[in-house]
């Protein structure tokens, strides 16, 4: 037996020696390619769904698609408040006096990227007809675009076109040559849009959004349903590799017409170095890479290793990255040259009440009592690491119509005594003790569970019993849209800088499956909404928006909890990383200090030695 064990030891030693020799060769040297190649490396928190512009809605699709496709208009990269500027359009639109007809001219000489779908594989020139085709495609019911709701009842003849498409069996059978009065190419470089009624946010909603990016008909015809992974755009980059579920790589689009880095910015941009590249040709980066990393730990480790240039801060790493006392990066981060940026996200989160619910809908004191019992500051500290503002209203800070005085109305006051009094009133209205309420959480993950328990404890303080149902997202959405949920946790982020996005959440005509998941209905509010929806920016509109916000808040259709503050970390070599909450096609402006990046490994070694 001794001999047997001896032989075994020898074999084991041999295997260990082999592993020792192999192991150092396994580590990551650098995944960003050659050291003189400019590559932007990002994390993608979940897999990319589609790169078909007409059906894009998710953030990640926009993030990648925004580099490949372009829109008629976009928001200025640096200027704040956000300013709309032409991108594919040749100037701002000409708008008729009745605000119903828009004439948009498009730039000449814009080329689609080279792709086998074109004759000889050479990208052809972009024409006005491509925009018309793309809008009609979204209207085509056989295409079933997620974005149709933005167009419904808005453009003359487009709803009728949708009706016409119902007779066909598939998307490709539809005749896109069929005239639609409200969407026309007047010539190769001029588009005419005619609206049913004035729509002041049309440009921001549609023509600055990736959904309206021009699609080449040849590409859709060539790839059919596989167009989701064969994007053919006019943007600064084109897709090189998409390993679905794991890796995306874009390279420069050789056909792109070129652009210069902005020479003007907002206040403080010059000092922050955002204008260092002013007037230079963009894009700077040769390649853009996204790695799909769903778990926070590997993403964080890759970032700390310098293999991801910038990312949000995972909840579990927040204390490692940010000092709580002054909201600055910790010394460890400073030593590594890591910087922090934070900015207001135009979002609002709430615990919504179903206003058609027999217990909640007719009992305002009960709704108000629940709002008073919720300690928002504690919630923000506990769940968001302080990364949020108390939501005193529902219009997010950072938008023009945000009311800085909203706090004084006390809609989100935490006052248990008053909550108790209100509850007594509520019991009288209900005709006895309030029965157990049911809250739906849109997730079964740890965060949802902890948050659900937190809400339970908050309401228990005024002796309201709460049952929490943790649901998967589709079930939650289906029940929410049918009005089957009593209380629900939700939130929304503005997709353009106009509070109308939030106000429509309370219009009767927007009942679910539209945005109004509260089933809140107030005829006075509806009348004001009709007026506000067709008003162009002016001080009168600002006042109207604020009045409408207060009108809703007075009815307590929800416990509005917080507005999110986004925190982003990035390495010192990542330049021009100015946060922007409404545009996605910004990678062309990002720059990399290669010397700094290439020296990071040395920096890490030096820090390691210092620690020892």
């Amino acid at each position, binding site marked *: *037996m001794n*001999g*047997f*064990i001896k*032989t*075994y030891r020898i074999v084991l030693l041999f295997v260990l020696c082999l592993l020792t020799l*192999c*192991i*150092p060769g*396994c*580590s*990551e040297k650098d*995944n960003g*390619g050659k050291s003189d190649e400019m590559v932007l490396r990002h994390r993608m928190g979940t*897999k990319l*769904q*589609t790169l078909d512009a007409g059906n894009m*809605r998710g953030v990640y699709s926009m993030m990648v698609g925004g580099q490949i496709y372009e829109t008629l208009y976009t928001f200025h990269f640096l200027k704040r408040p956000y300013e709309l500027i032409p991108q594919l359009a040749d100037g701002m639109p000409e708008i008729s006096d009745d605000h119903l007809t828009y004439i948009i001219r498009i730039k000449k000489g814009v080329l689609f990227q080279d792709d086998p779908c074109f004759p000889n594989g050479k990208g052809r020139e972009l024409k006005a007809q491509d925009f018309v085709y793309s809008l009609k495609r979204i209207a085509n*019911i*056989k295409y*079933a*675009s*997620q*974005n*149709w*709701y933005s167009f*419904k009842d808005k453009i003359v003849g487009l709803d009728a076109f*949708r009706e016409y498409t119902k007779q066909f069996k598939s998307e490709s059978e539809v005749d896109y040559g069929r005239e639609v009065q409200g969407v026309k190419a007047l010539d190769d470089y001029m588009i005419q849009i005619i609206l049913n009624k004035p729509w002041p946010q049309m440009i921001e909603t549609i023509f600055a959004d990736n959904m309206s990016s021009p699609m080449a008909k040849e590409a859709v015809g060539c790839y059919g*349903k596989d167009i*989701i*992974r064969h994007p053919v755009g006019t943007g600064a980059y084109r897709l090189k*590799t998409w*390993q*679905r*579920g*794991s*890796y995306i790589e874009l390279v420069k689009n050789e056909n792109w017409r070129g652009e210069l880095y902005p020479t003007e910015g907002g206040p403080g941009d010059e000092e922050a170095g955002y204008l260092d590249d002013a007037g230079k040709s963009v894009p700077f980066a040769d390649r853009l890479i996204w*790695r*799909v*990393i*769903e*778990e926070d*730990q*590997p993403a964080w*480790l*890759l970032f*700390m*290793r310098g*293999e991801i240039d910038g990312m949000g801060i995972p909840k579990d790493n927040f204390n490692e990255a940010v000092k709580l006392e002054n909201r600055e990066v910790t010394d460890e981060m400073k030593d590594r040259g890591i910087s922090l940026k934070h900015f207001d996200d135009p979002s609002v989160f709430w615990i919504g009440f179903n206003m058609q619910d027999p217990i909640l809908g007719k009992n305002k004191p009960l709704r108000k009592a629940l709002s008073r019992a919720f300690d928002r500051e504690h919630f923000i500290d506990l769940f968001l690491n302080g990364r949020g503002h108390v939501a005193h209203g529902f219009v997010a800070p950072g938008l023009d119509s945000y009311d800085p005085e909203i706090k004084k109305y006390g809609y989100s006051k935490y006052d248990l005594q008053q909550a108790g009094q209100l509850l007594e009133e509520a019991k009288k209205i209900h005709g006895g003790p309030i029965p157990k309420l049911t809250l739906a959480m849109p997730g079964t993950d740890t965060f949802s569970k902890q948050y659900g328990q937190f809400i339970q404890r908050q309401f228990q303080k005024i002796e309201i019993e709460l049952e929490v149902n943790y649901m*998967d*997202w*589709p*079930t939650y*959405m*289906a029940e929410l*849209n049918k009005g089957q949920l009593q209380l629900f946790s939700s939130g929304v982020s503005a997709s353009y800088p106009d509070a109308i996005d939030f106000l429509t959440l309370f219009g009767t005509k927007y009942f679910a*499956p*539209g*945005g109004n998941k509260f089933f809140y209905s107030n005829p006075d509010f509806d009348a004001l909404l009709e007026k506000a929806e067709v008003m162009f920016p002016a001080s009168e509109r600002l006042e109207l928006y604020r009045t409408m916000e207060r009108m809703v808040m007075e009815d307590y259709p929800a416990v509005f909890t917080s507005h999110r503050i986004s925190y982003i970390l990035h390495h010192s070599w990542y330049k021009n990383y100015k946060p922007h909450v409404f545009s996605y096609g910004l990678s062309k402006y990002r720059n990399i200090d290669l010397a700094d990046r290439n020296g990071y490994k040395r920096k890490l070694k030096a820090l390691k030695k210092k620690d020892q």
Partner: protein
Amino acid sequence: MTAYIIRRLLYLVPIVMGVLLVTFCLFTLVGGDISQQIAGKNADAETIAEIRHEYGFDKPLFLAWDSQFLDHFKKAFTFNFGRALDREKIGEKILRGVGPSLALTVPMFLGTLVISISFSLIVAFLRGTVWDHIIVFLCVAGMSIPYLSFIIFGQYYFAYKLDWFPIFYDPSRPIYLSIILPALIGIVAGLGSSLRFYRTIMLDEIRSDYVRTAFAKGLTSRKVLFKHVLKNAMIPIVTNTVLSIPYLILGSLLLERFFGIPGLGYLMIEAINARDFFVLNAMTFIMALLIAFFTLVTDVCYAWVDPRVKFD
């Protein structure tokens, strides 16, 4: 033997039908309508109806020639599973994931098997000694530590701190570099239960009379252990080994997710999270087929390793 195999293959037919019926009930009747999910958050009733039509959710469930149930059978038997929720072909998804999953699970499986069988022979031989106690203690300790802890520690310490391995899968480098660490973690994490299992088998054998006789005859330890004990312990080893093969194809859910290996384990997690019943359905069906097939292979292997087994 041939008759036995044919008979067993025929048994597969009702098994597969049963699986199809169960998956249909599970994913179609219980799972509910997912057209709202596909149509998007703010879709109107018309768009949802269109999606229902496109995916065939508006067809009768059972009693019609073009019922959803028959569609379900047709898709399974032709291996044409259609498109996933993200509109990619399910067949392509599965084929793409098989390679990376096997690249991770096969070395993990073989490593665990070889190490645990070899060590189980040694500890069975050294039963009752300090070494036996230490190894059993380590096995129990290894079994008590959650799998996730092995992953988190391994990734942090060996990939990040020591920089011996890549932290995450990088498609620009050969896949074997990215699977060494997860495979080692998988081996270490699985060794405890595996070694204990094989130790019990070996102990049963090593206490047998024929082992005592072999040692009495003066055979060397190596000959007794590898020629006699191992051979007689082959039936449980074969059962355990062959029945594990289908799961190799399925991949490793957690390891693939943490190390970004784009295999079928990752695909399954994604499908579960997205309620993509089309993908789950296809994967369940394929797994059922594989398990049924490898159960048959196991039975055939018995005869190969143990001449006493006869197929009547």
